[in-house]
């Protein structure tokens, strides 16, 4: 940040935005100086997304004012935001997979030649010029379907720069990146700022806030909790502001006491939906009383492995032995009955039916059993009691259990899944990305629950692309790369850098 420059790039005053039942932004004041990297942090549901959606013209505030470069503006649609020089990189990329980088970048604003046709050469060269200027290494002719997540993200950034954005909003940009890719992204962000751009960086990873940002704004429950210079604050202080109480950054747990083997996977081969090999000759075992972690960048066979173990995907070769019995060809319900619970990575479509009420999702594994139902008739009283118990025990924040599940925040939806899965007291819980899109307070609660399961003598298989998570929660960690286990590590004996190399498939 240039200290002597006090011009503001973005200022919002007194913004309030309510949805039915919640106030997402409650008199929010937010100020971003020109040329700074401003981190916006907060739990899910804290109101960060609503705030940037208002800035980007996706949502309209109920009241309040917005100033861009000290001028009052009304941003009533996205086009207007772009016109004002605001660019946004969403968490989910908005790219056409079959288009090249340049085609995606130019989409809607293609340069024309004298005959009115699209001037592809002009577009390609302009894209590579911008890319070079900001150190964004993207081949304009690369099709997005063949591009890595990191490249796709850079393409998204280029898209905003191509539209002359001066204020870039990055929504949780590191969620999908490896440690190395994150470092590269940070270099890009620094060069953007060197060229006079302003960056608003949304995240809930405090380590990144400390590393990259100049100033930081913390939100909670729709209100701004504090604004400070990053160098004057600490992760602990920020975490406290975010959740409103002290949080432990490390998961507190004792040494694992593994006992007998509960899951044994022998030479497993699994194909993905396109018929390609996703899991290759993989073997692992999980014992009662331990948490086994699987670390790796998304898309290295974790999804297929978990689906094969839980019965959603057929195995091609190999054995899965659970509690002494071969289970590779029995149905998901029978596996559940044998004591295998599964928290799936995709909670919106697999773990939940968002169109159903909360109670309906909570009883998904138990509705057919007494006392929840008798003779095929659901006992509403018992079901509601059961649901309310789970709601209390797992701290699901909702006005009631007759609320549509889709109206909950991501973290609360995840708590519904976890509550249902753990309510059956399973022998083994397979938790796949259990804290994805979940806020810090709830992450802590979920981690605690996983450790509690372990301490009660049950087993956990934790699959996560979140390196911090695997390393702090699991007792043993397997690093997976292209469907194979690269290395087994003890999380205490290995550092982040080394793990990054394993995750990239590099073994010493």
């Amino acid at each position, binding site marked *: 940040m240039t200290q002597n420059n006090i011009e503001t790039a973005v200022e919002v005053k007194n913004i309030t935005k309510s949805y039915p039942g919640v106030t997402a932004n409650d008199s929010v004041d937010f100020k971003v100086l020109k040329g700074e990297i401003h981190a916006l942090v907060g739990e899910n549901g804290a109101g960060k997304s609503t705030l940037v959606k208002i800035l980007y013209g996706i949502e309209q505030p109920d009241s309040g004012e917005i100033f861009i470069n000290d001028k009052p503006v009304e941003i009533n649609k996205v086009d207007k935001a772009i016109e004002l020089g605001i660019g946004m990189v969403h968490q989910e990329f908005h790219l056409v997979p079959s288009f090249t980088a340049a085609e995606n970048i130019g989409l809607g604003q293609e340069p024309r030649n004298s005959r009115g046709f699209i001037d592809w050469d002009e577009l390609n060269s302009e894209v590579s010029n911008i890319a070079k200027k900001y150190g964004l290494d993207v081949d304009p002719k690369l099709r997005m379907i063949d591009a890595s997540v990191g490249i796709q993200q850079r393409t998204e950034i280029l898209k905003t720069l191509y539209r002359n954005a001066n204020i870039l909003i990055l929504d949780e940009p590191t969620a999908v990146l490896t440690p190395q890719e994150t470092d590269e992204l940070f270099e890009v962000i620094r060069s953007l700022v060197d060229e006079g751009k302003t960056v608003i960086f949304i995240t809930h990873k405090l380590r990144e806030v400390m590393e990259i940002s100049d100033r930081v704004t913390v939100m909670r429950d729709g209100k701004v909790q504090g604004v400070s210079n990053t160098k004057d604050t600490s992760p602990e202080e920020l975490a406290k502001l975010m959740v409103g109480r002290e949080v432990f950054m490390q998961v507190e747990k004792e040494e694992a006491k593994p006992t007998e083997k509960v899951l044994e996977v022998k030479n497993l081969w699994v194909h993905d939906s396109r018929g390609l090999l996703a899991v290759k000759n993989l073997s692992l075992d999980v014992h009662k009383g331990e948490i086994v972690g699987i670390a790796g960048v998304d898309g290295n066979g974790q999804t297929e492995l978990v689906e094969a173990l839980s019965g959603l995907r057929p195995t091609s070769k190999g054995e899965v032995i659970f509690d002494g019995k071969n289970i590779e060809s029995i149905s*998901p319900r029978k596996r559940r009955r044998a004591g295998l619970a599964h928290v799936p990575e995709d909670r919106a*479509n697999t773990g939940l*039916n968002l*169109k*159903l009420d909360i109670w*309906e999702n909570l009883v998904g594994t138990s509705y057919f059993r007494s006392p929840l139902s008798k003779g095929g008739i*659901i006992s509403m009283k018992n079901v509601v009691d059961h649901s309310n118990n789970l709601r209390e025990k797992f701290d699901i924040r909702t006005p009631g259990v007759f609320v549509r599940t889709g109206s909950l925040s991501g973290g609360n939806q995840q708590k519904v899944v976890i509550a249902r899965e753990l309510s059956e007291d399973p022998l083994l819980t397979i938790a796949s990305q259990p804290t994805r899109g979940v806020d810090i307070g709830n992450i802590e609660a979920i981690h605690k629950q996983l450790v509690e399961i372990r301490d009660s003598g049950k087993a956990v298989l934790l699959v996560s692309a979140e390196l911090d998570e695997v390393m702090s929660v699991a007792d043993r960690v397997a690093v997976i790369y292209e469907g194979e286990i690269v290395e087994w590590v003890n999380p205490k004996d290995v550092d982040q850098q080394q793990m990054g190399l394993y995750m990239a498939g590099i073994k010493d």
Partner: protein
Amino acid sequence: MEKFSFKDVLILFAGTIITIGIAWVLLTVTGFVPREIGKLFFEGAVVGQRNILNTLNIATPYILTSIATVVSFRVGMFNIGINGSMYIGGLYAAWAGYKFTSLGHIPHVSLCIAIAVITGSLWMLLPALLKVYAGVSEIISTIILNFVAVLFVSYMANGPFRADPIAPATPRILETAELKQYFPNSQFNSGFFIAVIIAFLTYFILKKTTFGYELRSGGDGLVGFYPSRYSSYLGIPSDRSAITGMLISGGLGGLAGGIEILGNARYFYQELLFNQGFDGILIAIVGKLEPIGGLIASLFWSALRNGGLFVDYKTEVSREIVVILLSILIFFVSAQKLVSSLERFKFVRKLDAFFTRKIK
């Protein structure tokens, strides 16, 4: 489909007012006095024993076909073939009605109804199996089956089941197979009570039984996206649910056709025209895909229809005007974006919260 809320009532109200406005204009430019026509319309819909009975009688098949739609949508299937099931169920109800000669009243009617349900249901077996095991879109297969049904019943009424040498029609059903008409001035019959019972029974089954839970968990809100991963993840047999749902849906269509024959027409003839299977889809959507919603929407719809018929009978106004007005009204009621845009008004949000609490 969102849950029913106060906003929907508001939109319905606003839609009705706008529709009345348009009707006013249409009637004035075609040279009528809107106030008088309106009065006649209201009278035809809900005033007097005869008109009320007729409205209820018209509602019977709509109730059943809208619930048939509800069931199919709830398992994630877009069944457009309910009309086909109506024809098949109607034809075989007529056949059973004249074929079995030595039965008492209750056994005979029950048998006819059972046959209508079973045949209407089996008519949907093929599209259900094709969808689940071969991935054939049920939208396409059920549309095609509608044509097949029309041609099939027309052949049967003309050939194997034909009795009358002059007209292509089955024999009249026996008195023992008739659904009782209670009043001399209306065709209103006991079929209406069957339809109402079915509405409440469907509500109970869908909401309060494990069977209903399994039906819904796979497809609720997922028409066109079946099968959902949710049900296979929980180990709920979603294929079985989808097939069962289609069979129930077809069975209700068959029942609608059967009641039309046993209660109103009393024989099946080639020119018999059913279209309630299609209107049932619209009505079900107006009723927010809830069985009781379908029941209420059917009564509303039938009142409008009967009012229109009354106007048509008493005046020179063409009955097509009613169809136009109904369509405009449906337009408003199904305008989900309009409904959600109402949320920007504070009083709407407040009232919404108030009524939601009341319902709980």
